[in-house]
């Protein structure tokens, strides 16, 4: 099972985080507590989407370097700081897919895969598993991202919305549509 995909509930208070960001905007050395707080979550987000560990480390490094470079432009607009970092991570990931430095990968735990299939069919078979894997490959990338975050990484709709730049409700609706599409592809393969 994944170690820590979503951020733990215990976090900086918004005011505390705001102060840390302001200090880091003046002097990048003060970014250290923010790095310590979010590095693992960002690394795991990247790691599950690329096929090689070294690439995950490289991309994670560039996420934090880019974050430091853009920190002076960061303004608090009600979204948590983590959402801003995840968006940088997402953009860095897709840049490496475009540059063909990394391969788009989906990491799934078999237990989770089984849970998804059991919701749709009465019995879980190896054939169903293979069908679901094929169906996943037929989804559009945005649909795949939503399914990935909601079901394989167990993120809340709020968090999905923050990462994807959607409202919580919109994230819910879009994920629901993605699930319908996946179900449709899954049953087509019968």
């Amino acid at each position: 099972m994944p170690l820590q995909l979503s951020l733990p509930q215990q976090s900086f208070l918004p005011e505390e985080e705001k102060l840390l960001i302001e200090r880091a905007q003046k002097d990048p050395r003060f970014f250290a507590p923010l790095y310590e707080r979010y590095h693992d979550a960002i690394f795991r987000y990247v790691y599950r989407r690329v096929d090689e560990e070294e690439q995950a480390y490289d991309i994670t490094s560039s996420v934090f370097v880019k974050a430091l470079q853009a920190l002076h432009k960061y303004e608090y607009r009600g979204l948590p700081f983590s959402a801003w970092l995840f968006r940088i991570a997402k953009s860095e990931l897709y840049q490496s897919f475009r540059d063909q430095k990394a391969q788009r990968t989906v990491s799934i735990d078999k237990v989770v895969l089984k849970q998804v299939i059991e919701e749709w069919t009465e019995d879980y078979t190896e054939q169903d598993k293979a069908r679901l894997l094929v169906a996943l490959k037929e989804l559009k990338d945005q649909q795949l991202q939503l399914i990935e975050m909601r079901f394989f990484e167990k993120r809340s709709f709020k968090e999905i919305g923050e990462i994807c730049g959607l409202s919580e409700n919109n994230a819910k609706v879009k994920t629901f549509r993605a699930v319908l599409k996946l179900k449709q592809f899954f049953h087509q393969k019968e």
Partner: protein
Amino acid sequence: MLKIILDRKEPSLEEVRQHQNFDEILAAFTYQQKVNNPWRYWYYPLLPVCLLLLA
């Protein structure tokens, strides 16, 4: 082409921390700042000019 990996082993928190730390990130950022600074090409040529002017 999408690749799907089942039951992938994830590195532990300690492994990740050993592999990367903030000092490396800060060093990379500082280097980038230096490289991206357009004035860096003027520092050395300007030094003798300033000395000449002072003289």
